[in-house]
């Protein structure tokens, strides 16, 4: 296997992740050929393009086996591949972070959809109506939406913990205190989201939990010619931390 020296993480420095390496490699290939598509990249890597897209976007976990396989396709030296694998192992909690971030994103998307799309509230309301039937076809006819739309909404509500299918005849609105209006429903959805996000955040390792909470506001005077370099070399956040006494 040919060595690709520029891909070696420097000794003592974890360097970029394999995901970042893939992103950089794709950019490099596009630089050589503006027509180079993600599908072409996936073909070269002998991987499904949807999977590659998820890997590059961080929506799919980068397993050690995946790193080894793709590193071989990229003709990285064994040492380089091993270094990327080592990095993933060292940052093992980061892999869990990825899964947690994915779950956070899913929660946010589901909660947003539940708030914006009226059928979620309507279905919960319907469960409280005498004569409610846990039958998607019936719900579909009553609300005038497709059975698929009912199922997608029901799935989101169950995922968010706002609806429970107790038995064959009973679906229960578990969105919390009585929801009497669309506004109440929106607040209930946000409350559910907060509770789930808190639970997920608590499950993250300490090092990861600190990062989202780092925020500060500092005004610094920087000469315009030096501004780009200051940002690029992380001098601004470093100076802010100095001033904050961290």
């Amino acid at each position, binding site marked *: 296997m040919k060595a690709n020296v520029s891909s070696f993480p420097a000794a003592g420095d974890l360097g970029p992740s394999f995901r970042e390496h893939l992103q950089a490699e794709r950019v490099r290939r596009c630089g050589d050929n503006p027509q180079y598509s993600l599908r072409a990249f996936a073909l070269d890597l002998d991987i499904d393009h*949807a999977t590659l897209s*998820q890997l590059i976007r961080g*929506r*799919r*976990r980068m*397993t050690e086996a995946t790193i080894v396989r793709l590193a071989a396709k990229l003709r990285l030296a064994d040492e380089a591949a091993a270094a990327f694998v080592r990095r993933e192992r060292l940052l093992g909690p980061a892999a869990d972070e990825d*899964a947690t971030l*994915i*779950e956070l994103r*899913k929660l946010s*998307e*589901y909660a947003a*959809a539940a708030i914006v799309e009226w059928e979620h509230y309507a279905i919960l309301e319907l469960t409280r109506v005498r004569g409610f039937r*846990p*039958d*998607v*076809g019936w719900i*579909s006819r009553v609300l005038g939406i497709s*059975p*698929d739309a*009912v*199922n*997608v909404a029901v*799935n*989101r509500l*169950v*995922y968010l*913990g706002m609806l*429970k*299918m*107790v*038995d*064959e*005849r009973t679906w229960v609105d578990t969105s919390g205190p009585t929801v009497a209006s669309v506004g109440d429903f929106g607040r209930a959805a946000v409350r559910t989201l907060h509770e789930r996000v808190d639970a997920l955040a608590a499950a993250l390792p300490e090092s990861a939990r600190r990062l989202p909470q780092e925020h500060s506001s500092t005004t610094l005077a920087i000469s315009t010619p030096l501004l780009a370099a200051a940002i690029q070399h992380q001098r601004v956040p470093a100076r802010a931390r100095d001033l904050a006494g961290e």
Partner: protein
Amino acid sequence: MGAPVTHWQIVTKQPDKLVEFYTRLFGWTMNDKNPLRYRTMQTGAGRGIDGGIWPAPAEANGFVQLHVEVDDVRARVELALGLGAKVVIPPQRLPAGDEMAVLHDPDGIPFALHSPAQ
């Protein structure tokens, strides 16, 4: 004895399109005459397992999910959690009487636990 995989499920944003695709490609038949209007897919092959097609929300990618039949869904969920799984859909009693839960395995791959109606 191990728990059998008794059902597969394709989750897609284009359920009707995939029903047509698979029925035409493999000669499967679709039946959605059930309380969930779930598109069950029968292969008619006499071997292997049947499956189904479920609608995905707009924000989700398509995927395939295996359903494993167990005697006690709740007990198996607890076991799975201890092994590193995460619950996506906690145990639910479906309109037809069967019970189901959906989890993510330690690699984030979804799978379902299923117990038929008694």
